[in-house]
Each structure stands twice: as C-alpha cells, then as structure tokens.
C-alpha cells in the first residue's frame, strides 16, 4: 500500500515557481483538447485557432497586442494590490469608470482643438478609475468593509452608470436611437503606431508601466513597505509601515491603471462609449496577474497569452461555430490549473509506504 503525501519544502522551489504556469498551460491545453473532442470538433483545428492564428500574420499580431494592452495595464495595478494583500477584484468597474471619464472629456472636444486633447482624455480616465477604487479604499479604511465584496458590487453599479449615460444624457441624437454616444472627434483618438493596424501608443503606456512597477516593487522603499504589509502584517506594523497607506496606495494605483486602460480603449479601438465597453478585461486581468506571478515581466507574457484566449474564442465562434464564451471557460481552467500546480512550489509529492517496517 502506498499513499501520496504532500511534504512541505524547507524553501519554496524557485524552479517550480517558473515551471508551474507552464505546466498549468499544458493542463489547460490537454483539457481543451478533450473538450474539443467531446464537442465533435477536430482538436488540432481548435489548437490552431487559439495558438497559431493569432500570431500568423502581422495584422493578427497587431490584434493580439491591441487586446493584450488593457489586460497588461490592469494586471500591473492588480499585482500591486495582490502583493499588498488588498483584494481588489473590481478592476472591471474601475475600467468602466475610466472609459466613462475619458468619454466625458472626449465628447466635449471640438475638431478645432489640437492633439493635446488626448492628454486630458486619458487623465480623466485615470482620475475616474482612481475615484472608483478610492470608494472601496474609503469604505475599507473608514468602515472596515470587506474590499472583495465592495469592489465587486461597484462593478455592477459601474455597469448601470454606463447604461444610464448611453441610454440617457449621452445618447447620440443622430444615432437611430442606439444606446451609444456619437463617435468621438478624430482629434481625441489615441494615435496609432502604423497604418493598417489598430495598435496604438497605448502599448507604450503598458511597457512603461512594466518598468515603473518593476522599479516600484524592487527598488523603492514604499514598494517594499507595500509588500511587507502583504506578506507579514505584524512585521510591517513593527517596522512602522502604515497599513492604511498601503491600502490607499494599492487601490489608487490599480484604480488609476484600470481607468487608463478603459480610457485607452474607448478613445482607441472603440472610439465611442457603448454598452459593450465592458469586455471582462478587469476579471481576465486577475488571471493575467496570477499567471504572470505578480511580476511585471511575467505579466507581459501572461497578458499576451490571455489575449490569445480572447482572439481564439472569437475565431472559434466564426470558424468552428462554437460559442465565444469558450474564452471564459479556458480562462477559468487556466487559473484553476495554476492554483493546483502552485502546490509544487511549496510542497513536494512523496509516495509513502503504508504499513511497512518502521
């Protein structure tokens, strides 16, 4: 008789902390292949749609980056939260508010204005996102209300704010009664990098964000304080780091970044405010953050991977006649697999002989 036992490692395994996301992806792909077979679709076609089509042409890679940009920007902020043990899961709401804030400024712009108008558009998005996350921080700080539930509830409220605006005061009077704003003036649109691709300068924001967050985490005192508070609250208190400050910092940074992502999205690829602005990026970014090990560079890879899932889902719909929601299934599976595989970071598996000689 043998029994599988978990044995705690004396130190977390460095090797497995890198290998676990890869193993998780392998598990997800295996489950995906099984799922495709069960649905009577050719699994090779499925794999091709998810992992080859999104990178096979310059245009496809561009689309991959268009979706990876908001995911990465939001995930960077969430990594700050999760490393500080602040459970902000309402990034979707902060993203929506960012889009609303940016739209508010963009709608006021007139064609005669200069290209500088993009700056206030983005700034409005950042501030709106910060405001929405700030509500969560305030309620946690002042009333001790659970930030998981508050931030999540605020997502539903944000959706209604968006709906109210596009069905009401901001509805395009010439839009055949569709619930959407008028198309923004060309001058407010985020500049694109090249003709023939939708990639905008937003990608630079994401990459600069990677650098800034890296420096914040690993080269600044406040970034250090932030993480100590997350790992060992008692030690952090003893060191005199303020937990309130850490809470506000984490939520304002992540709210601001989610807001920026929303602003880049409405003023970029979408170009108007519609009820379809919320695409679940705020939730997918949670997975991006975890799969990227909450590390700025790791999240670059996981954001591209998650973007592949999005595009793969859309292609699965048009090419294989499968519902687009397949994306969500795979995203959830990936996070599940990752959590299971992460066990190998802290434990090793041992076969223990039962009833043998002692």
């Amino acid at each position, binding site marked *: 008789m043998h029994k599988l036992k978990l044995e705690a490692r004396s130190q977390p395994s460095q090797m497995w902390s890198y290998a676990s996301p890869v193993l998780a992806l392998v598990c997800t792909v295996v489950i995906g292949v099984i799922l495709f077979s069960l649905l009577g679709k050719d699994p090779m076609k499925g794999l091709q749609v998810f992992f080859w089509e999104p990178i096979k042409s310059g245009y496809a890679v561009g689309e991959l980056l268009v979706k990876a940009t908001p995911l990465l920007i939001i995930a960077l902020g969430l990594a700050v939260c999760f490393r500080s043990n602040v459970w902000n899961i309402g990034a979707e709401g902060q993203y929506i508010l960012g889009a609303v804030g940016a739209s508010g400024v963009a709608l006021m712009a007139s064609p005669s204005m200069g290209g500088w108008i993009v700056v206030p558009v983005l700034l409005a998005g950042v501030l709106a996102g910060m405001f929405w996350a700030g509500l969560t921080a305030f309620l946690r700080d002042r*009333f001790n*209300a659970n930030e998981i539930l*508050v931030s999540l*509830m605020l997502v539903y409220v944000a959706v209604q*704010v968006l709906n109210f605006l596009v069905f009401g005061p901001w509805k395009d009077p010439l839009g055949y009664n569709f619930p959407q704003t008028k198309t923004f003036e060309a001058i407010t649109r985020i500049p694109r990098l090249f003709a023939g691709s939708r990639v905008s300068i937003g990608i630079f924001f994401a990459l600069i964000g990677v650098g800034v967050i890296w420096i914040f985490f690993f080269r600044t005192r406040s970034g250090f304080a932030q993480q100590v508070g997350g790992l060992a609250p008692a030690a952090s208190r003893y060191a005199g780091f303020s937990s309130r400050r850490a809470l506000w910092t984490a939520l304002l940074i992540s709210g601001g970044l989610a807001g920026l992502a929303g602003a880049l999205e409405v003023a970029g690829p979408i170009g108007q405010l519609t009820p379809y602005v919320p695409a679940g990026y705020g939730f997918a970014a949670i997975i991006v953050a975890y799969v990227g090990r909450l590390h700025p560079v790791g999240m670059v890879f996981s954001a591209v991977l998650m973007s592949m899932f999005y595009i793969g889902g859309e292609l699965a719909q048009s090419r294989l006649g499968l519902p687009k929601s*397949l994306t969500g*299934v795979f995203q*959830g599976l990936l*996070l599940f697999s990752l*959590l299971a595989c992460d066990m190998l970071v802290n434990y090793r598996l041992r076969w223990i002989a039962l009833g043998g000689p002692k």
Partner: protein
Amino acid sequence: MDSYALLIAATLNAGTVLAIASLGLLINEKAGIVNLGAEGMMLCAAIAGFACVVHTGSDTMGFVAGAATGALMAAVFGGLVVWLNTNQYATGLALTLFGTGFSAFAGINYVQAQIPERPDFAIPYLSDIPLVGPALFHQHPLVYLTVVFALGLIWFLYRTRSGLILRSVGESPESAHALGYPVRWIRMGAIMVGGALCGLAGAYLSIIYTPLWVEGMVAGKGWIALALTTFATWRPARVLLGAYLFGGVTMLQFHLQGVGVEVPSQVLSMLPYLATIVVLAFISRNPRWIRINIPAAMGKPFYPGS
C-alpha cells in the same frame, strides 16, 4: 392593497434565492471556509437545472441537477483548498470565472428555450384569506422549506454535538484536529453541502423565479449572498431576515418602476448593490462586533502537521 400583497409575495420569492445560497455559505464559513465561487456555482446550477427541466419536464429533477452541479463544483474547490492548501479567495474566484464562462458556453442553446407553464402553488384554504393569502400562501414549497431548513440549521449548529464539532473546525482547526476530529473531511463535507445549496438556489432562480435562462442571470446574487453572512454576523436567523430584506430591495425597484417614479431605471437597478455596500459598511463599522462573531479560522488553510 393587493399590490402590496403581491409585493410581499415577490419579496419572499426573491429572498428565498438569497436565503438558500446564503445559508449554504454560512455552513461553509462556520467550518472556516470562504467560497467566493458562489456566483459561478449558482450560474452553472441555473443552466443545469433549467436544461434538465427542458428535457425531462420535471422540476424535481431540475432541482436535483442544480444541487448536484453545485456540489460537484464545490468538490473541485474543496479538493484544491482543503487537500492542496490553495488560497481560498483565489480558488473561489477561479470557480466564479470558470462558472461564468462555462454557463454561458453550455447555455447557448437554451436562451430561447421554454419550460412548461408554472402551476399556481396556492395552498388550499389558507390562500383564500384576503391579503394574507396572496401575500404568503401562493409560494413554491421551497419557500416554506427554506424557513424550515433555517430553523433546522439553528438547531443543528447550536443544539447538536455535530454542530459543535463543525463550529470548532471553523474556530480552531488545530484544537479540533488534536481532539481527533477529521478536520479536512469535515471541511470537505461543509463545502459540498454549501455548494449543493448554492446550486439549489441557482436552480430555483432559473426554474421557478424567472423562469428562463439568460447568460449571467444570477447578476451578483451569489456575491450578495456572501455579503449576507457578514451582514447577519454569522447567525442563521439573521441570514434569513437579511435575505428577505434584500429580496425586498430587489422587488422595490420593480415596484417603483411600476408605480411610475421619476427615476431612471438604471438608478433603480443599482439599488440592491448599493444597499449591499451600505449595509456591509454599517455592520463592519464596529470591529468588535465582527471579531466576536466571525469564525476565528475563516479563510485560513489547515494542513495537519504543518
């Protein structure tokens, strides 16, 4: 006056969905487990139950399918959380993200589907009483069973030995383990019962309450049910009360729309979520209140020998 009777009836109906799920989550939390996957389990159970009724025509089968779906998903969550020691919040979140995607995926062919006309669930004689009859006695049997279940749960948790053991696992798993109780199996059991109840709530939503399937139809009710346990400071009777209160808030928006209040419908739709936030802040404001009542080991992993 009749509109008020109907409002009360609708409140009970809406509150029942929240009450079933929240009582299930309460059982989890009493054993020290927080399952943020409630929303995902309810969604998957809603489509499983609904699909089952479409194909078999039997509500009972639908409820069974819903509860089984919830229990199965909870078992996956439990396997990870209890046996592999994963973070409860992250794992629950994964369950919700997966459930949201999977239910949309599985339900794509049921969006237009119809199920047989719901019968009138009037109780003979009692339902004929003016005002009280239409308000209280025109409900699905599960509405009354929920109240019975809540009473049973109070008895179980506070009057039986098993209930005491369950609570001890949530207060101090180390002590329970030292006394020889199988802490991990008890937690696993609590997780599965909680999942089954969330599933039942999801099935009730799609089979009786709406009754139809729409993508994302749970619309945050799983999260509100999670907030309700805090709101109730982990007391079953207050969970039930809170559930009806929030059921009332949900119904109030339709009532206000019905009587033609000059407020945009989107603002009314925010009401349940805003109410949750306000109530949560109000209850959590007093840290002592929370600390006395919260199961001490809630959200904390337990691995014997670690």
